[in-house]
């Protein structure tokens, strides 16, 4: 799985960029609940007043507040506010300000002369002072006896004239009490105070509130838009990466496999190679597409946890509990369900198998009247499949309820414990609602991750299967310095003490084979199944390399020329008539792209294929379906013979190519072949004696060894094995 990295490397810059985008997206997504909290807590509860720093305040009130500020804060305040009154302003300015702050007509006010942000550090100090002033004005500052004050004198007047020492002492007493009050409560009280103050000044509190609501809402809209944009770009990048990786992977596998020899095909099996190139690549692509989620989920989860614990750490345990519960539930559910998933796959295959069997054997079944028996067999698998399916479905129907319980349980817990904290002043309602949202985001991200971890092992198996192919070195390679065939010999094949065994096999398939096949002559091979006759002729085009001895074509060792040059000489007809999708003409031209129509017709004639091609309305342009399923076995065979003929090669190899033909066609074809391929070397593997009866040289193989070489007549007298085969097929008179 890790080796997938080599494929992703090419995209590393893009991936880094995408990670940055996803990080941004997660931040945006995490910011939203915060803004929502602000709308509720500031916009609604505090009339849109976010800070305890007043933008404008009556001088009389501000003086009171200043009494409760320490020196440092006071200095900052002095620097940040300007006093507006009739005297200090020009008439023009004065009128302007009065329009804005109507109270200015009656008394002077202080106006904030800088940005709130600049002096945010004094926010809390001011808040505390405002709280004290507010409560003192309401006459309920505990610990201070109002009764001691002279008539007509407020506590503020008293404090203003108080010696500095005494004031400090008094303040530190208040400070102690304030320290116990949570910040949320302080800001909330000061906001109420300021709202009242602004109203007194003549400011429109409603418009302040509305502008706050719309500003915050605007930010939220922009954030969601940006988040959308970022997500789209990230998803664009990842879809291209995923498709790109599978493109390259598929392409690498394919060209690798195209250069495999028979040995590698035997090692993997064709079916497995196909699944690896198609299905396994698909699986890997699926996970790469999910990379976006794999990256997003933890960032969101961790980001959410950080945000939550920085604002309110005392309720994090609820989230932890929810996540752990959910992971346990998911894990236990899937540990029960996944083995069953595998079983279902097997049972579906079994249903297919039984059905396929009863379709293929339909005549046998009806002949033996065993329909009921077949129905019972099917019913057994069907019932088991249904039972397993039902179990899995029912187990999976727990999934949704479980998730709902975790989610809703979390909300309920948060509301209950949140309420306690709100009561204590440590939390505001909006923040609590935001907390619920964060909790949901975190739980969801862990849920996503756990799903990913169910998918990844599957893809990992696929990736390993892919790399198994890519790591395989083809056993048959071209020589580094290739020889070339001389023009003197045309199609001379010499086997000199050749042995062959499949890799890893103890027993040799072919032992000490020596013979020569002459140009212009027919060499036939016969022997029972497993005697090695097909293996032998497949050595000539170097589909396999020999293990011992020497195999020469035109005097050159086949290992010393390129595979391309060697195969140029050979016209090969496989055991089964293998055709490719396309037309009859395109299949014949597969041997030689430049063949003329006349060439094709001639080849078809020799191969006895003209007759059936003529019966097709489209003639040579008749479509051949994938795998040649729309022509019969005999027709396929004849077309693949014609294909080899189009090539006009020096060597013909017929690997049991005549068995699908009836005697008559077989005979006529051989007759035509003999007349038309005069100078070529012909190698024929056959099952039927009649096919090879007139060969120039018959080689009889038994268990990988040559047990006889000669003509039909010679062998009948000298070779026991040959005689046995012959008598099993023809009567004595026919053989005579």
């Amino acid at each position, binding site marked *: 799985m890790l080796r997938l990295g080599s494929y992703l490397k090419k995209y590393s810059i893009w991936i880094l960029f995408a990670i940055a985008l996803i990080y941004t997206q997660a931040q945006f997504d995490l910011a939203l609940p915060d803004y929502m909290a602000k709308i509720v807590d500031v916009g609604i509860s505090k009339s849109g007043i976010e800070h305890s720093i007043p933008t404008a305040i009556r001088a009389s009130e501000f003086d009171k507040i200043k009494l409760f500020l320490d020196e440092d804060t006071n200095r900052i305040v002095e620097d940040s506010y300007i006093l507006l009154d009739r005297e200090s302003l020009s008439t023009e300015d004065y009128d302007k300000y009065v329009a804005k702050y109507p109270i200015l007509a009656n008394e002077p006010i202080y106006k904030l002369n800088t940005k709130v942000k600049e002096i945010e550090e004094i926010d809390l100090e001011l808040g505390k002072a405002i709280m004290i002033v507010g409560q003192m004005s309401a006459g309920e500052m505990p610990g201070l006896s109002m009764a001691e004050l002279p008539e007509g004198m407020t506590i503020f007047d008293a404090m203003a004239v108080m010696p500095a020492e005494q004031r400090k002492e008094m303040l530190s007493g208040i400070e102690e009490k304030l320290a116990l009050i949570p910040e949320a409560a302080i800001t909330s009280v000061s906001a109420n105070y300021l709202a009242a103050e602004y109203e007194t000044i003549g400011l429109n509190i409603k418009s302040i509130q509305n502008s706050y609501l719309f500003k915050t*809402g605007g930010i939220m809209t922009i954030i969601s838009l940006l988040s959308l944009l970022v997500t789209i770009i990230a998803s664009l990048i990842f879809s291209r990466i995923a498709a*790109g990786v599978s*493109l390259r992977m598929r392409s690498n596998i394919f060209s690798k496999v195209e250069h495999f020899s028979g040995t590698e095909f035997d090692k993997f099996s064709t079916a497995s190679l196909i699944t690896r190139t198609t299905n396994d690549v698909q699986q890997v692509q699926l996970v790469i597409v999910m990379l976006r989620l794999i990256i997003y989920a933890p960032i969101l989860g961790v980001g959410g946890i950080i945000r939550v614990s920085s604002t309110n750490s005392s309720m994090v345990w609820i989230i932890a509990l929810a996540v752990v519960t959910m992971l346990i539930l998911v894990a236990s559910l899937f540990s029960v369900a996944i083995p069953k998933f595998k079983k279902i796959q097997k049972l579906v295959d079994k249903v297919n198998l039984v059905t396929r069997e009863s379709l293929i054997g339909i005549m046998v079944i009806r002949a033996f009247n065993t329909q009921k028996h077949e129905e019972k067999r099917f019913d057994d698998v069907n019932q088991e499949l249904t039972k397993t399916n039902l179990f899995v479905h029912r187990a999976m129907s727990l999934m949704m309820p479980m998730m709902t319980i975790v989610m809703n349980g979390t909300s309920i817990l948060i509301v209950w414990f949140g309420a306690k904290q709100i009561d204590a002043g440590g939390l505001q309602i909006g923040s609590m609602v935001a907390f619920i949202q964060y909790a949901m985001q975190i739980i969801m991200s862990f849920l996503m991750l756990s799903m990913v971890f169910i998918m990844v092992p599957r893809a990992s198996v696929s990736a390993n299967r892919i790399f198994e192919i890519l790591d395989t070195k083809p056993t048959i390679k071209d020589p580094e310095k290739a020889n070339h065939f001389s023009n003197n010999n045309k199609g001379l094949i010499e086997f000199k003490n050749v042995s062959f065994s499949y890799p890893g096999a103890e027993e040799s398939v072919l032992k000490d084979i020596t013979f020569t096949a002459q140009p212009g002559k027919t060499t036939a091979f016969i022997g029972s199944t497993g005697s090695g006759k097909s293996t032998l002729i497949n050595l000539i085009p170097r589909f396999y390399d020999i293990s011992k001895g020497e195999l020469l074509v035109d005097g050159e060792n086949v290992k010393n020329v390129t595979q391309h040059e060697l195969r140029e000489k050979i016209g090969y007809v496989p055991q089964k008539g293998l055709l490719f999708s396309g037309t009859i003409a395109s299949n014949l031209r597969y041997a030689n792209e430049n063949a003329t129509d006349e060439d094709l017709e001639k080849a078809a004639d020799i191969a006895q294929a003209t007759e059936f091609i003529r019966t097709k309305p489209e003639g040579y342009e008749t479509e051949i379906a994938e795998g040649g399923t729309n022509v019969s076995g005999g027709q396929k065979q004849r077309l693949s013979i014609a294909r080899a003929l189009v090539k006009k090669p020096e060597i013909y190899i017929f690997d049991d190519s005549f068995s699908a033909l009836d005697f008559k066609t077989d005979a006529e074809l051989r007759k035509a072949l003999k007349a038309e391929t005069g100078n070529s070397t012909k190698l024929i593997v056959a099952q039927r004696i009649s096919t090879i009866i007139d060969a120039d040289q018959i080689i009889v193989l038994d268990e990988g060894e040559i047990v006889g070489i000669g003509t039909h007549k010679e062998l009948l007298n000298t070779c026991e094995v040959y005689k046995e085969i012959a008598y099993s097929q023809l009567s004595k008179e026919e053989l005579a």
Partner: protein
Amino acid sequence: MEDNKAKNPRRQQQGPFGGGPMGGMGAGEKAKNFKATMVKLGGYLKPFTLQIIVVLIFAIGSTVFTIVGPKILAKATNKLAEGITAKMSGVVGAGIDFGFIAKILIMLAVIYAVSVVFMFIQSYVMAGVSQKITYNFRKQIDEKINKMPLKYFDTMSHGEILSRITNDVDTISQSLSQSMTQIITSITALIGIIIMMLSISPTLTGITVLVLPISMILIMIVVKKSQKFFSQRQEYLGKVNGHIEEMYGGHIVMKAFNGEEKSIEQFEVLNNKLYGSTWKAEFLSGLMMPLMMFVGNLGYVVVTIMGGWLVVKGNIKIGDIQAFIQYVRSFNQPIAQTAQMANVLQSTAAAAERVFEFLGQEEEIEDVVNGADISNIKGTVEFKDVSFGYNEDKIIINNFSAKIKPGQKVAIVGPTGAGKTTMVKLLMRFYDVNSGAILVDGHDIREYKRDDLRSQFGMVLQDTWLYNGTIRENIRYGNLNATDDEIKAASKSAHAHHFIKTLPDGYDLILNEEASNVSQGQKQLLTIARAILSDPKILILDEATSSVDTRTEIFIQKAMENLMSGRTSFIIAHRLSTIRDADLILVMNDGDIVEQGSHEELIGANGFYASLYNSQFSTSEE
């Protein structure tokens, strides 16, 4: 190395997780008659009316309870807000009413619990219903196979039938177990949510509902666009996979003709096209989530701002905003589900239609009620002016007549594709003659019950059909009531006993799926043993021509001789010795019987048979 290479490994690519992400977005196919099919499908649900009513009640119940949740939670939040505001503004003795909140939360917990239990009961019951229906469908299709005339299978590939039994039935099962309840819950949820929202604030609801079309339009656009690329991707994926299968399957030919470069070149072209459509399809379907999220966020923002504004105005309370946000969020899912519903329903109807079409196919003509007595059959077979064609308008056998006495051997010969198996199919009544009649012991075969008739026939074909079971079970197939001793006796007579004894588990060896753990010749012997066990009066044999080694070949000949003794036999003959020994030779060409007679007669006639016979040695006689 010689055989089983070009096996077509194309299989149903269905993982346990269904069709991957956004599986429902693939280009759906349309049913020809949507309404009729759905009505018919409804008929299949009828026996489960009670269960389905339960499912409906619980689905609606569960949805309703889920939807009520946020509104109740809002009460708690409102109480909380009231309490804290009062406390902040300094009302004496004010505070949060924890008693009330606790009551609300407990109530909420109960509601959620009930909703969850409902949810579970609903899907539990529905799983049972859908699996039962799926089971029935599969069973019916399988049983249907045995009732259909063989003719049907000439035009229908095995793959198509298999795909009905697995893919189509699975599609139906999926939509029954998920989509059906989803339709109900989605609609209930949509209505419920709107009601709840209206009850909180009509103004806010109005504004929210305005946002919905945006989400609908966005989803529609994405679904439509991506469908195009999905079908394009599917098409190229098919082409790429097709090329891979073809080239790997024909690897040797490709190599022999130096086709590597050409093949890779072709592959690259297809692969690049696949890349283009893949990333576009993937990208567009990937857009779905963020778009939904954006619309969700938009709704969220709108609700927060407008809600905030309404709270300030005093129309609603803070908790209501919270509830509203929850409602807006849960609005998206049912909408997305409803948007895809049309596709799901269409593909369900298409799948159901295919299944119904199969189930509705014509069955074999009914047997006669009182079949002629079959118990003492001797084995006389007579063809009386038989004419037959696979198609009514293309008669291939014209007015054929012949009479075969009990115990005689009939050889059927002719070139490849001459229609030799047609005779077999007619004799066993896999097909009925168009005119004339085939008589067995003087009775038209249509006067027998099919089962009775076939029980008198034994059949050994070239495609040895054995199934994935033990050797004993496979032989017993000839007579399901046979004892082990009888099986052994039959095997001995078929020269199979000896090799069976040498196999790892003997008679209990399980033949694997391809039955490749016994050789072709051995399979042939097993089918002969099977035929011997069935002890038929009339035999149909197909001589092996290929892939059998010499020694087994001799065994097969001997076994066949044992089998034929005293039985009327029809032999699709390849071996000249068999043909020459036959009592009657039927020579076939292009589907018709062109000559009949003994070997000597036919050679003497110097017709088609003579030329066929002589061609075998023509080249050697030159």
